């Protein structure tokens, strides 16, 4: 009975991930081919594509998307591997992990805004550089950051944001019991053969784990080529990246622009696919060259250079984080803070008051939506994982499952979300919360599944076998043994789901048609507003909110354990007394 329910839930999860994406793709394909009855376009043709490709700037947009997307993924991946190569066997690893982990749950929009505070021509670094020199803000035309037409600032921001994700993905693969024991053997053998630590890492560790982190990296690549928030906040406008253009065209007052937007969305899918092909092709070349170099048997792998680069990356993150924290906090309480002073002139809590008044509704919307999404996604994910253990699927079914799991991450959101909205308006026009809920689920479920699956695989299944042999039904085993044993991991997954839901910009904006304001949509909107200081408050709130979930996730299990161990503390005392006697 329970086993059947879990199998049904597994199917629900699959459908929940696949239907919105596929429906969304169909929903943009029709208008792209000229079929859009709402504005009287009833005939299929390729005219819309002709119009799209006739634009002067279209190829430049495609290039910007490709360049910033592929470039940032490569930079982030290289950075992540350099850091791991230097730190994977040192006691610093956990500190580096601790430094980078908050980035994972820091929304993309907030990260982009935060970089604006640190690196813009009037940002904190410029202020430091301007000490003792002229007091004029450098002109914006000749600076690299932000809004450069080459896409470098977008590339930089994306790499900074994706590097922690790749590191944490790699570490979670490397900490799986089977992989871990295999790797520690490889490391011993490699070291005994005289290979230096970074040579061991690049020649033995990476080839072993890369297959397992490839899918997440491909998801990063698709995300980077089609992301909206970061190029919207940091990118140039003439032209923008393709994804940003799509968003502007879709939101244009002139509804006929929807046709153009839809065709561009189809083009975006092609661009992301091309990025994937380039990456996979590059991988083949690296593997080929790598094999030749493996056979050469060089014992060193530019160890000095690797270490130097790794320390520079850490230094970069530390200085950026401290600069951002300092300037955002100062701006949020500044009365006035003009260039090039390092301290604001006078402080006030006015912006905080204004923000809290303005954010009451967005805040409760975010919490309600996040709570609903994260809690229900957790249920789906746990039942799905349980169904796998109750009745393991075949190899092919397993592979199909993991591809569908990644489907929403491998299809650009900006492409399918618009089509999804079109469908949702056809089916249930007024169920705004439901639509937004579905759009969030599509993004929350995959990450939550990845996070929970690691914990589930680490669970010693003999506990379940013992409980079963004591006469407990599969449901009882799940409820009384697995859930309590995995409580810590479950809470972390829940907090992760909450954080991901908080950070959604495009899905919220589109699915709700702008009627559900969240912290993230308000923060992005505030960038183009007048008050830098109010934006600073928004960034702080955005950064703190995901942490709330994690604090609960860390505190709650510890508190429960403490309650349980109070009994044992008393016992220890009585035992000590016994021993004394």
């Amino acid at each position: 009975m329970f086993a059947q329910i879990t199998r049904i839930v597994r199917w629900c999860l699959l459908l929940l991930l696949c239907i919105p994406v596929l429906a969304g793709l169909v929903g943009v394909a029709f208008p792209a081919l000229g079929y859009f009855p709402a504005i009287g376009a009833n005939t299929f043709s390729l005219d819309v594509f002709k119009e799209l490709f006739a634009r002067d700037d279209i190829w430049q947009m495609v290039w910007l998307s490709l360049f910033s997307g592929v470039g940032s993924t490569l930079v982030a991946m290289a950075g992540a591997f350099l850091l791991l190569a230097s730190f994977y066997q040192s006691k610093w690893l956990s500190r580096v992990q601790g430094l980078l982990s908050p980035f994972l749950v820091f929304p993309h929009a907030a990260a982009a805004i935060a970089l604006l505070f640190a690196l813009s021509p009037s940002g904190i670094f410029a202020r430091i550089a301007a000490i003792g020199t002229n007091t004029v803000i450098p002109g914006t035309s000749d600076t690299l950051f932000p809004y450069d037409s080459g896409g470098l600032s977008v590339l930089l921001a994306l790499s900074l944001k994706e590097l922690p994700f790749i590191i944490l993905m790699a570490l979670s693969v490397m900490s799986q019991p089977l992989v871990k024991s295999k790797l520690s053997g490889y490391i011993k053998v490699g070291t005994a053969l005289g290979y230096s630590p970074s040579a061991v890492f690049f020649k033995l560790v990476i080839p072993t784990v890369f297959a397992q982190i490839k899918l997440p990296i491909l998801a990063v690549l698709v995300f980077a080529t089609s992301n909206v928030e970061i190029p919207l906040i940091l990118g140039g406008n003439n032209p923008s990246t393709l994804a940003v253009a799509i968003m502007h065209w879709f939101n244009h007052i002139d509804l006929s622009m929807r046709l153009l937007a839809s065709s561009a969305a189809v083009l975006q899918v092609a661009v992301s696919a091309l990025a994937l092909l380039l990456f996979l092709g590059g991988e083949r070349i690296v593997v080929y060259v790598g094999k030749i170099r493996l056979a050469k048997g060089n014992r060193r792998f530019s160890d000095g250079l690797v270490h130097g680069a790794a320390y520079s990356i850490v230094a970069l993150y530390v200085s950026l984080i401290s600069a951002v924290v300092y300037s955002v906090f100062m701006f949020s309480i500044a009365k006035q803070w003009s260039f090039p002073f390092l301290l604001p002139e006078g402080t006030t809590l006015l912006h905080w008051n204004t923000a809290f008044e303005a954010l009451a509704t967005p805040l409760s919307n975010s919490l309600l939506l996040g709570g609903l999404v994260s809690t229900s996604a957790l249920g789906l994910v746990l039942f799905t994982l349980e169904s796998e253990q109750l009745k393991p699927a075949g190899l092919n079914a397993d592979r199909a499952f993991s591809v569908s799991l990644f489907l929403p991450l491998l299809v650009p959101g900006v492409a399918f979300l618009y089509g999804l909205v079109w469908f949702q308006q056809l089916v249930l026009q007024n169920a705004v919360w439901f639509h937004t809920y579905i759009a969030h689920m599509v993004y929350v479920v995959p990450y939550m599944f990845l996070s929970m699956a690691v914990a589930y695989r680490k669970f010693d299944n003999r506990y379940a076998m013992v409980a079963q042999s004591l006469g407990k039904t599969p449901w009882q085993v799940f409820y009384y043994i697995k859930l309590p044993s995995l409580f810590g991991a479950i809470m972390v997954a829940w907090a992760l789901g909450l954080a991901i839901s908080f950070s959604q910009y495009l899905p919220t904006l589109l699915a709700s048609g702008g009627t559900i304001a969240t912290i993230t949509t308000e923060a992005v909107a505030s960038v183009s507003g007048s008050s830098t200081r109010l934006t600073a408050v928004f960034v702080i709130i955005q950064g703190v909110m995901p942490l709330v979930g994690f604090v609960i996730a860390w505190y709650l299990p510890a508190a429960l354990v403490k309650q349980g161990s109070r009994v044992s503390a008393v016992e220890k005392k009585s035992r000590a007394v016994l021993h004394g006697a």
Partner: protein
Amino acid sequence: MALSLENLVVSHAQNALLKVNVCVNDGEILTVMGPSGAGKSTLLQAISGQLHAPFSVSGKVKINGVVVNDKAAHLRKVGIMFQDALLFEHMSVAENIAFAMPSGSYANQQAKMDTIDEMLGAVDLKGIGERSVTTLSGGQQARVSLLRTLASTPDVVLLDEPFSKLDIALREQIRSWTFKQLKERNIPAVLVTHDKEDSLAAGGQIIELSPC
């Protein structure tokens, strides 16, 4: 005639892994020996009903004359013990045992707790019911683990190298105590082990599995 394995063949995909044809009487302890990879643990999983695809079972597993091949694992009344005690860490000692007791077998919670106290007292573990299982020594854990299995009133008990992690001094003591408990209750048991001593102490039939 309590546990009989009639022409039991366990296969992986299409390849036969092991063949057994044996009868274990009430209170008898059958020892299964063989090198690693011979499928000793797999045999136990076949008996307890915890073998999943790509493994398959043919032949019959009979408990007290009833064929249980198609019964779900939790309905077979087959207790299983591993080399680790595997006590549930989120429960106290008493809760671990209470969890194993068939529901509805005691008039009230108090009767249940009294029985547990009695069981613990009988094995020199009086008064540890409220303790958290992580505070127990290895020997205490092993004893609680067997008490837990016995509390579920199993028809058959399977022992998967249960003594291999205990140190030598403790090992003999726990072993003879475990066998005594099983024989007193007339429970047929299957013991999987590498250790000749174990098989001699068990005193039942010995079968040697060889990879086929």
